[in-house]
């Protein structure tokens, strides 16, 4: 079943076309990576999916409904969560509060419940606190619930970002370079976590990634972007040997060289 489908999405900034006729689709329960050289338009594409930018042309359908023109908070409410390329936590809030903020669209407490501390409010707060703790354990955060987010080490902050994105029970989670700056051990843990997000929670995972070990290891499908559009799609094995991809990454000469190498072999 198709979860996300974009047709001919175009996003321009003045004279620059950052996303150019992007056609992309995602099946429910997949783990897919988008790769591409710097400036290919990957993050801009993410931002059009989450409503931070609205595209000039094209359609975006999520769960068979158009999400074009919705505000970011409405899109989050529909079930798309995200993390950011540069960590964007609420630094002066505690870890558990960060996760509770992520739950915002799922909380039903009204102002009256809050001001009068009605039982409905207390119940919802204690349930959501428990749920937040479960999520913390799921992403591997222990004993840090009351720490301010800014006081966590880098790897911990990355985990909090993922936990916050999971808090709203999304159908789709977008991870923007989630392993950037991690050491090999942390990267391995992260890959395992992303698999578990899909396997145990059934959430579809779409990630932008530069680290080829991560991409080749985790992805079931890879989409390659360059100059704002899709230039190739396929399994990791197909992408590895796709001449267009090699050209985009390494230049035309590299493709020629590879052919020569193959010819010699």
């Amino acid at each position: 079943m198709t979860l996300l489908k974009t047709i001919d999405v175009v996003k321009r900034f003045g004279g620059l076309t950052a996303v150019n006729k992007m056609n992309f689709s995602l099946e429910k329960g997949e783990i897919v990576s988008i790769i591409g050289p710097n400036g290919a338009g990957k993050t801009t594409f993410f931002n059009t999916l989450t409503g931070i930018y609205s595209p000039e042309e094209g359609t975006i359908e999520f769960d068979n409904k158009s999400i074009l023109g919705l505000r970011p908070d409405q899109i989050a409410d529909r079930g798309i969560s995200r993390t950011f390329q540069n960590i964007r936590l609420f630094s002066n809030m505690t870890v558990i509060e960060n996760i509770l903020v992520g739950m915002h669209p799922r909380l039903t407490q009204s102002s009256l419940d809050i001001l009068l501390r009605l039982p409905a409010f207390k119940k919802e707060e204690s349930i959501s606190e428990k749920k937040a703790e479960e999520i913390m354990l799921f992403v591997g955060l222990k004993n840090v619930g009351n720490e301010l987010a800014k006081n966590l080490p880098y790897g911990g902050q990355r985990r909090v970002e993922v936990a916050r994105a999971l808090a709203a029970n999304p159908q789709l989670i977008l991870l923007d370079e989630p392993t950037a700056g991690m050491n090999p051990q942390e990267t391995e843990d992260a890959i395992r976590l992303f698999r578990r997000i899909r396997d145990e929670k059934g959430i579809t995972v779409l990630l932008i990634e530069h680290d080829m070990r991560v991409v080749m290891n985790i992805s079931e499908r890879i989409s390659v972007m360059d100059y704002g559009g899709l230039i190739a799609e396929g399994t990791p094995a197909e992408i590895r040997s796709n001449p267009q991809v090699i050209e985009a990454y390494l230049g035309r000469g590299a493709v020629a060289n590879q052919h020569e190498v193959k010819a010699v072999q």
Partner: protein
Amino acid sequence: MANFDLNKLTQKIQQGVWPIIITLAHLILGVTLVYLNPRSNLAFLLMISSFLSLYALKTPVLFKLVTGALLALVIIPVIGVRNIFYLEVIFQISVFSALALGLNIVVGFAGLLDLGYVAFYAVGAYLWAFFGSQQYYVLHFAPGTQPSNLPFLLPSDMFYLFIFLAIIAAALTGILLGTPVLRLRGDYLAIVTLGFGEVIRVLANNLDKPLNFTNGPQGITPIQKPPMPPAFVDIFNSVFGRFVGHTASVADMYNVMFYIYALVVIIIIIVVTRRLNDSKIGRAWTAIREDETAAIAMGIPLVKMKLAAFATGASFAGVMGVLLAGSRTFVSPESFSFMQSIGVLTMVILGGSGSIPGVILGAATVTILNLQILQGLSLYLSQLRQSDAVIPIINFAWKNLSNQLDPAKYQRLLFGLILILMMIFRPEGLIPAKRQKRELASDKVEVKG
């Protein structure tokens, strides 16, 4: 070494019965001194600062509540009726605490810099000023030409209804201002709110024509006070009369009454603020303050939440406006100048943006500096000027001291200095805001290597 000893000392006074003894000693000393020297500013400061001991020292909650209530509801009214100047200072502290707590929601929690906050205060004040005075019958007269002996539009007990109407009116004004401008960020929002504050003041100044709504720069007077039950005066006199030293008049009791109303409003504001802060709304506000982009990506409707912050903050100011109009029986545009907005902002920043006790401390400090310390200095200097005293060595006669040097006029310098010094040395304020700690089961999980 000195630092080490200080730590030991702080530890010691937080243990056992010491906190209770120190608090009581502070309180009793302060109250006795004020009682014996009804004109001493220092004694008054000592008494007021016992609220700080009460707040900071670790005593049982019940002790804090009982002592606090005794101080606020019995001792201060008695001392205040004995020397009405103190009651005025305390009333002003309460009014500004309430305003600062309201602004704290907008600036401290949601991080929206509002430089025109007194506009909402003005809305509340002019609301009761118009309906609680004869102004309705003066609509067709230019200021100063109205006939005398006009009736009041509404009976004076409508004051209480207007407290609630002011909540709605100020909140609506907040939404009205907020809707077009809350898409702006940071500096731009600050500029627009600054402009809005001035617009309201200028409106108050000029809405005396074509129809005379506000009576222009002269202001509206007399405004009705709510009725005073005569029993209140009698009971106060029979119970506390011998402590006060003279019979309290109705005017004295009005001061006590408005002080108590201000206290009630403060308590309501504190309860509302704390409850909101510990809920999804408060978390959304803090998230917006920390990172707008991340907040909206987490599903927080930015405009709705910012409007809620604006309206909540505004409604508190509206209520205090009605209280001001009632207690002063006079309202004029001068009370709602840009300097007032800056003053309230100074209180929030001095005390600690986002911190409830901090903001109250900030309001008390700035008000006392303004009303007591600067004016006390002015008085002292003018006495020196009249004396024949001479500073030795440089042979400067105090008589020749310029009249321009009047500390009471240096309010702006004071605000400026406070803002600059706080921003450099302690941007989080005197009592920084703390995040609430939760009892978490996961904190007890063993960490595996």
